[in-house]
């Protein structure tokens, strides 16, 4: 039945069931084509289109198709169905920028062409010759589209295929990214909740002004120095505009800021977390080595003269490993048909393991726990280093901050953290995400996604500690591939400023309007944004102040372990030869402490975790992840949401969360009723503005699919998904299988 390209089926006849035959389409081809144009975004331009194109739908078990027109614009590839849309159901969760049949150009991961039943990866060379009968598009958000070009006129088919291939796969310049054509204005005043939106938006600290940094230092009681000398990037173009360094650093201008320890966060005890880019140093380069020693010394001076350095390039996989592992991993979710699904289902666990992706997540979390341990238990300053200093350093430092500081587990806090560490901190988003389809494979790597994956693990393990939901994380991971937000478009602060400065005079209508991703109203209306909030979040009990004060560094729960400020040694393996002299120097001062723990880091963190686990959990205190095998899981929502075989109709965690959200809104309603009666308190109504909306609109949650709010099952036929190919699934080869159930007949069996 399913004659998909890879299936190897012989039949060349179309194997779909459609309500309209191709002939019918052709006869009335012209009128629909004129009518059905995509709703273009401001600044969006159509490149080419073709009709009729058949889009296969995976919704149903029987693969059928829908005829329509395929467009390619400067923003997306979009498919408009010829079928008149049946009663447009108001989707609760609709992205304003792109719909279910839209693929932003930068979101295209790979394109495959099916030529004579053979599936080929489309690269530059293949485009020229001939066009395939079928085009399969794999997206970075893990959607899979299949378009049949067989019914289209040859030149149209060729044009659309080449157009899409060109715009999605060819290397392009940054100016071609849609953000530079986008004229979207934040819908002013139209939305009633706009004011609230603005307020919310402003709560995300952008860390683009000295005030933001001063505020953050105040919040964490950091005893460091704000550097404003790089305001015009005179110091280094790779460094942030503003940053914070240990007080003890005098000379900023040597080595162009290389090896400069940059402050991340201060523990209430006074010790702090720093990150730095340390290029590999040769023995001969004595001066530079000395420079680094000075830097480490400066960090140590921050608190009680203690420091632990950790070279992440040595202990964690590098960005190419991460990229490779993710490439393997994502293949398990880019599923084109049911047969493939059930075939791969059999080897699911070992496939997962072979990709190594979950293991990388575990390693990162483990490393973050080690850092947390140093700060929380040993009260030692920590300096994490890496060659570039802007990839894994950020993963680890952000994770450590989330574990330690409950403020970063609120939605605004989390967004501020991403701003602080990743955006202001100059993570090379443009290169890592490969928005420009550069052929150079070295610099692409889903580092930011890796970070979100790790956060998801924490969220699923300690749900009540987080104000945001997994849906929020999924949407954020998708937004990376929406080429509109300035957040993910640049390689550094300097890059952003120079591009923005250069661009703005060119744009006719004033300065470049490039929203940040945190302006969620660009993508979702306020109702949809409700899904970003976690109904399980246990807010702090006291609400006496209507305004959520920036977190006070009041850590209620400390491990009642003796403060062993000097205990942690420079563990083996970190920072080997280069810092021998440093070690010697420090050893003179505190020799005894270094001989301490002989255990491996894994063993000591294990102990640390267990002692934490033995205390009653405080969702507003320190949070540690469990890293044992079964605890690290696949982010089901992100990876399985488009696979119809995985939909649980009427089930899934959505059944739970919607119930919770309903109940929560009822409690809010009752509270409001009470407070309205209690006239004296009319002013402060609720502290959950986002949950005011009755979510009962989809109250029949009994019929929602587990993929909600992402994919909708269009065809609501209530059919179970019966696995195919069970026969080959389980080959029990040992003799037990052939034994009788009757014990009497297998008396010899022991």
């Amino acid at each position, binding site marked *: 039945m399913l004659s998909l390209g890879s299936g190897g089926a012989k039949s060349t006849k179309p194997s779909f069931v459609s309500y309209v035959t191709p002939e019918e389409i052709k006869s009335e081809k012209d009128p629909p084509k004129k009518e059905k144009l995509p709703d273009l975004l401001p600044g969006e331009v159509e490149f080419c289109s073709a009709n009729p194109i058949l889009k296969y739908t995976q919704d149903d078990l029987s693969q059928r198709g829908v005829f329509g027109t395929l467009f390619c614009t400067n923003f997306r590839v979009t498919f408009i169905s010829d079928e008149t849309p049946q009663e447009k159901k108001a989707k609760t969760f609709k992205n304003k920028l792109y719909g279910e049949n839209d693929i932003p150009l930068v979101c295209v991961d790979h394109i495959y062409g099916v030529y004579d039943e053979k599936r080929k990866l489309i690269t530059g060379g293949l485009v020229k010759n001939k066009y395939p009968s079928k085009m399969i598009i794999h997206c970075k958000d893990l959607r899979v589209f299949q378009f049949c070009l067989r019914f289209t006129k040859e030149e149209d088919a060729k044009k659309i295929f080449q157009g899409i291939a060109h715009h999605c796969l060819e290397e392009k310049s940054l100016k071609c990214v849609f953000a530079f054509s986008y004229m979207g204005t934040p819908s002013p005043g139209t939305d009633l909740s706009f004011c609230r939106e603005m307020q919310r938006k402003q709560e995300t600290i952008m860390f683009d002004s000295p005030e933001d940094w001063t505020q953050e230092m105040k919040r964490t009681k950091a005893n460091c120095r704000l550097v404003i000398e790089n305001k015009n990037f005179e110091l280094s173009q790779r460094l942030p505009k503003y940053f914070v360094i240990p007080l003890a650093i005098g000379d900023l201008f040597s080595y162009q800021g290389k090896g400069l320890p940059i402050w991340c966060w201060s523990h209430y005890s006074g010790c702090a977390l720093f990150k730095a880019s340390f290029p590999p140093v040769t023995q001969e380069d004595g001066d530079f080595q000395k420079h680094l020693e000075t830097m480490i010394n400066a960090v140590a001076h921050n608190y009680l003269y203690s420091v632990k350095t950790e070279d992440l390039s040595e202990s964690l996989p590098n960005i190419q490993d991460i990229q490779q592992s993710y490439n393997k991993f994502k293949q398990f979710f880019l599923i084109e048909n049911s047969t493939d699904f059930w075939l791969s289902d059999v080897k699911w666990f070992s496939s997962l*393991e072979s990709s190594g992706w979950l293991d990388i997540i575990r390693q990162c979390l483990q490393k973050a726990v080690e850092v947390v341990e140093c700060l929380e238990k040993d009260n030692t300053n920590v300096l994490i280093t890496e060659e570039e200093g802007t990839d894994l350093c950020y993963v680890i430092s952000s994770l450590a901050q989330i574990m330690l500081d409950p403020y970063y587990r609120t939605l605004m806090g989390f967004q501020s953290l991403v701003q602080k560490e990743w955006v202001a901190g100059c993570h090379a988003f443009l290169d890592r995400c490969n928005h420009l389809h550069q052929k150079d494979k070295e610099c692409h790597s889903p580092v930011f996604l890796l970070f979100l994956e790790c956060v998801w693990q924490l969220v699923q393990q300690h749900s009540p500690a987080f104000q945001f939901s997994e849906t929020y994380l999924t949407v954020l991971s998708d937004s990376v591939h929406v080429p509109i937000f300035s957040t993910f478009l640049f390689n550094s602060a300097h890059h952003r400023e120079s591009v923005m400065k250069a661009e703005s005079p060119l744009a006719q209508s004033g300065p470049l309007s490039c929203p940040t991703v945190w302006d969620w109203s660009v993508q979702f209306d306020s109702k949809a944004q409700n899904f970003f909030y976690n109904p*399980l979040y246990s807010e702090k009990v006291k609400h006496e102040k209507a305004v959520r004060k920036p977190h006070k560094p009041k850590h209620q729960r400390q491990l009642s372990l003796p403060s062993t400020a000097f205990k942690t040694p420079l563990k083996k393996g970190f920072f080997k030869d280069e810092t021998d002299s440093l070690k010697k120097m420090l050893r003179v001062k505190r020799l005894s402490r270094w001989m301490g723990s002989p255990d491996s880091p894994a063993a000591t963190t294990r102990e640390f975790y267990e002692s934490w686990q033995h205390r009653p959990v405080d969702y507003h205190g320190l949070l540690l992840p469990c890293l044992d095998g*079964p605890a690290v899981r696949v982010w089901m929502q992100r990876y399985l949401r488009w696979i119809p075989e995985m939909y649980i109709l009427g089930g899934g965690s959505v059944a*739970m969360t919607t119930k919770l959200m309903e109940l929560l809104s009822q409690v809010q309603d009752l509270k409001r009723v009470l407070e309205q009666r209690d006239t004296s308190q009319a002013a402060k109504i609720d502290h959950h503005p986002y949950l005011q909306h009755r979510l009962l609109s989809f109250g029949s949650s009994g019929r929602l699919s587990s993929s909600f709010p992402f994919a909708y099952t269009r065809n609501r036929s209530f059919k179970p998904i019966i696995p195919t190919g069970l026969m080959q699934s389980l080959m029990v080869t040992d003799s037990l299988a052939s034994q009788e159930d009757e014990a009497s007949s297998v008396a010899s069996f022991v």
Partner: protein
Amino acid sequence: MEESGSVDSVESLCSSTTTRSDRFSGTRVSDTEPRSKGKAIEKVYKDPSKGELPLLPEELVQDSAKDVTYICPFIGPVRGSLTVTNYRLFFRCTDREPVFGLDLPLGALSRVEKIGAATSRGDVSYGLVCKDMRNLRFVHKEPEDSLKKSVFEVLIKFAFPVSNNMSLFAFEYKQVFPENGWKVYDPLAEYKRQGLPNESWRISKVNDHYELCDSYPAALFVPVTITDEELRRVFSFRAKGRIPVLSWIHPESQAAVVRASQPMVGQNGRRCKEDEKLLQAIMDANAQSHKLFIFDARPSVNAAANKMKGGGYESEDAYQNAELVFLDIHNIHVMRESLRKLKEVVYPNIEESHWLSNLESTHWLEHIKLILAGALRIADKVESGKTSVVVHCSDGWDRTPQLTSLALIMLDSHYRTIRGFQILLEKEWLSFGHRFQQRVGHGDRNHTDADRSPIFLQFIDCVWQMTRQFPAAFEFNEYFLITILDHLYSCLFGTFLCNSEQQRLKEEVPKRTVSLWSFVNSQLEEFVNPLYVHYPSHVLFPTVGIRHLQLWVTYYIRWNPRMRPQEPVHQRYKELLAKRAELQKRVEELQREAANRTASSSSERAGSPTRSITPVQTFV
């Protein structure tokens, strides 16, 4: 899934208490209401040296020993005292803070053995292999007086009473509960609920005294067109006399789920006219369909191999209009081996780097998938195809009840309630003769018995998988399922004793023992899923892909203190429910006040004051 607080709440009854940290995990997810422990059940055994030990009625201390070391795989060796009663093993260590305790029903023991010879210091090591996925190890000094028995010899005696010609503790335990659980299942009432008997199905008394099939219940539902005389002939054609009888009937389409054992076809292709007529009658009883599906749970190879031993499957020549489907579920030996491997992988420690491939190599979840997939196909044929189905394996008492009861849970929301689930177990498993005694080996020392197999555990695992996929569709919570499994082994209640209804009656089990449901139904609030919504005619079709199946960590890995359960959803939901109730009450009070005020001001105008009260919207 459940808040972990529940784990140690019924510790006096279950084998749940393990380690210090396990107790801790119980208190981590903030304790809410004080739990109604089965407090009434306990009395306290006092021994000045050991502190207090809660004892059940008729539970007697048999022996105790000081200076026993428990080699805990998680926290290392712990010294303390060991007490053995006729029901449980109780280890307590007081020199640690907090106190470490281990409380294990002897029924959970599968094997007790001395490991190695005594050391120079006279220490002997004992290994205890448990049915509930853990192994315990103790080190103990043998008594110098050779006449005195070691505490472990006493333990062996009471752990395997059946092998020692003693009775199980269930026959001594005489707790009285408010409800009598033996009354939960009344077959006629259950069939009546399904609308039976009706014009197509009748009750047959042919097996009233279990003379035709000793593993079947007395009450059997068969098509009206088949006479008892014809049935008698079918008995001889089906393995162990387990003829096709009705298990469930669809309230609308009248499609039936029928269970049986394999036909005794043999190599020569024996036929039985009456059997063919019976299956035709089953098909005819459902006017909606002119087809009958026969689901053979076995892999086709095994079904064919059974012909050598006289068994086999329905041939298409003999059974026209019937379609035979093999479900590829393996036999009890494969399942036993799979669980053994699983235990190796999860206990005591999990190898992190190869966790996933190790898990895959046990095939446990793959077996779960096949069983769920089989049940799904059955439910689909009945619900979507409106076709009657016949389900059988070889004897029809292992894979068959797994499939029928899972299909019934999918089809009939009644079986997703606490009482409905009890009825389902009583009906599909107990009355239809799943051989619990053989599969579990209650009180039997012979741990290598090839009849042992975790068939029932596997079924409960499948149910758990469904509760994961449909968190609001089941009235019971995870703790309910774990409690059932704990008492499957504990031998405290009579519910899971013996192999068949006939044996249970012969042993007077309902008279002489307490039913597990007496205990459960006397404290239902422990077992309720707060998220439960009752949709009367809601069919559940679970997703059976391995990607959606999970290892039941809170059961299989519950002894590992690091794997603490963390699902605060229920907790949070209960909190919100309480909050809502409180607010509602306050709103009502205010409204009543307001109403009273208006009422008193307009009292001259007569009329009852209550009329002016606006009813408060209550959410359901």
